[in-house]
């Protein structure tokens, strides 16, 4: 049996066990829908349904997005299949009191990377093996060293352009945005009951999908995710207009990494960079 096949089997067993033991009200995992280019989320309520569960090379999604969804929370304790990268999002949710640890049952999967060719995020993944899960399935995977300069290559690439070209680039990219908000909806950390975009007294961000409004929206999104974004790349994957949103988030991740030595989601106990400060922070550029 392939590695993924073994994981699938183990996941089904674990899910069946916890569902029949009534330890959880629902297990969120991946399922296969032929005709889809990725494995889609499935929500299992009964042990008999576990055959729907799979783990394969196409489990791109970050299921942690569902942890804050009221419809899911109503079902009781949630079992959720998490890759190492997804776990980083869970850590942020824990840190921000969105979920309580006792309300989730984490089913960790050792994951060496997804997609063919591998997704860019998988190439620099530093959490092949999830830690702190309740159940872990699969064989532990050797964690290759990731150098600091590998982490933000996408942002680096854009940064290398002169400022005028960056403006042109983003003007072109952001003019495509149709404000479907898929980037927001798929983000596990965009859990606000009321998004800033929906605050209209006053209107923080223009809702019209013109460049000015789009720029404001993506700036707001980037700022709200600064020091929080775990780089799962879902926003970019789901963007129907193929805007390289991940690069913006990556830029901000780079900023907090370089300025404050902070990387999000590696622990639920971290202090987020924008909720704390150091008197030693850089003063450069202040008049």
């Amino acid at each position, binding site marked *: 049996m392939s590695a993924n096949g073994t994981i699938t089997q183990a996941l089904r067993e674990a899910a069946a066990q916890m569902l029949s033991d009534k330890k959880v009200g629902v297990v969120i995992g991946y399922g296969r829908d032929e*005709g889809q280019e990725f494995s889609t*989320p499935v929500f299992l309520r009964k042990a008999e349904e576990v055959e729907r569960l799979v783990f394969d090379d196409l489990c791109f999604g970050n299921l942690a*997005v569902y942890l804050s969804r009221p*419809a899911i929370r109503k079902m009781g304790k949630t079992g959720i299949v998490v890759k190492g990268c997804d776990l980083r999002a869970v850590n942020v949710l824990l840190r921000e009191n969105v979920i309580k640890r006792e309300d989730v049952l984490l089913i960790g999967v050792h994951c060496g990377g997804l997609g063919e060719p591998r997704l860019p995020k998988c190439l620099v993944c530093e959490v092949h093996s999830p830690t702190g899960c309740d159940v872990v399935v699969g064989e532990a995977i050797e964690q290759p060293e990731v150098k600091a300069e590998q982490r933000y290559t996408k942002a680096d690439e854009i940064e290398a352009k002169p400022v005028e070209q960056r403006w042109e680039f983003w003007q072109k990219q952001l003019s495509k945005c149709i404000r479907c*908000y898929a980037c927001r*909806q*798929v983000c596990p950390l965009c859990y606000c009951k*009321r998004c800033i975009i929906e605050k209209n007294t006053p*209107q923080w961000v*223009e809702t019209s999908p013109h460049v000015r409004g789009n720029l404001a929206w993506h700036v707001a999104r980037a700022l709200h995710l600064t020091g929080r974004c775990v780089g799962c790349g879902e926003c970019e994957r789901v963007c129907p207009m193929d805007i390289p949103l991940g690069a913006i988030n990556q830029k901000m991740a780079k900023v907090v990494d370089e300025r404050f030595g902070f990387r999000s989601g590696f622990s639920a106990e971290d202090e987020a960079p924008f909720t704390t400060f150091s008197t030693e922070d850089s003063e450069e550029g202040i008049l």
Partner: protein
Amino acid sequence: MGEQKLYQASANWLKSAVDALCAAGVEVLAPTQTDSGKVDLARVTSSEQVIGSYANTAFPLKRLFLPMSEVLLKYEKGENGDVDLEPESAEAKELVILGCRPCDVAALGMLDKVFQWDYSDVAYQQKRDRTTVVSLACTEPSPECFCTSVGGSPQGSEQSDVLVFGNADNTALMQVNTAKGEKFIERLADAVTPAPEGTKLPEPAELERKFNPQKVKGWLDDNFESDFWVENSLGCLGCGTCSYLCPTCHCFDIVDEASWNRGQRRRNWDCCSFSQFTLHASGHNPRPNQAARYRQRLMHKFKYFPERFGLLACVGCGRCLKNCAVGQNLIADLADIESR
């Protein structure tokens, strides 16, 4: 097809069309390759830019008539306190769309119903009036396509001024449906000749029917309250991708964007999947959860719209299932409904 006329076009018809139209100062939109590798309608000035083989464009035609964001009027408060109102004047320039697909064109019929129902929407109608739609019959439907399930056809000519049946050797058979279509043919000049009497249209591409909308509606009529809505919407994230890429979805929001003394009123797309779409000022939300919003979307397309206008609000283009972030599958959902 009584009034329809058939023409034969030579292999260089596309080049002639683009050249002739551009020379006449007509704006031409045709499928082109986007920088991210997709195919989408864009302004062209040369037939070189036009992409030949594609299942469908990334975006439906809708945004040409109901733009994502459209200025309806502008206003400015003068020194003396008077307010100057200036309705936005629509582009009157003639526009020809070359090579859109029959499903997207058919959707215009639904939009027409909405925007000309009790009041003729000027902004919409002006755009409709200036546009000639030259559609291209489908020969290779994509796996997501299901126009036949909703009463369409890979070579449906509904709302299309000219329907083109392309051949492998780039020659084409053109079916002209309207006066605007006639004008287009005239512009092609030598590149077209009337088809010989008795020329037959090619057989439409085969596309399996995946559900029966009548049966679906039957179930919808009786099952406003059903676990189906909750169970099938668990994965839905509530984004607007399906609606915004849908050729028939037409909900909009009107906003004023004003600074100190001047501003503009805009019509922007909106979407019933958004949690705030029906949020009342009181704080009450009649569609309080994603299940209710998902139900609304299906009900609107397959029950309410047909009840009001006698048309399904779905043309089977398959964009919603192709682009859904979580793989929500409308065909599967409707097939499920039918099986209930």
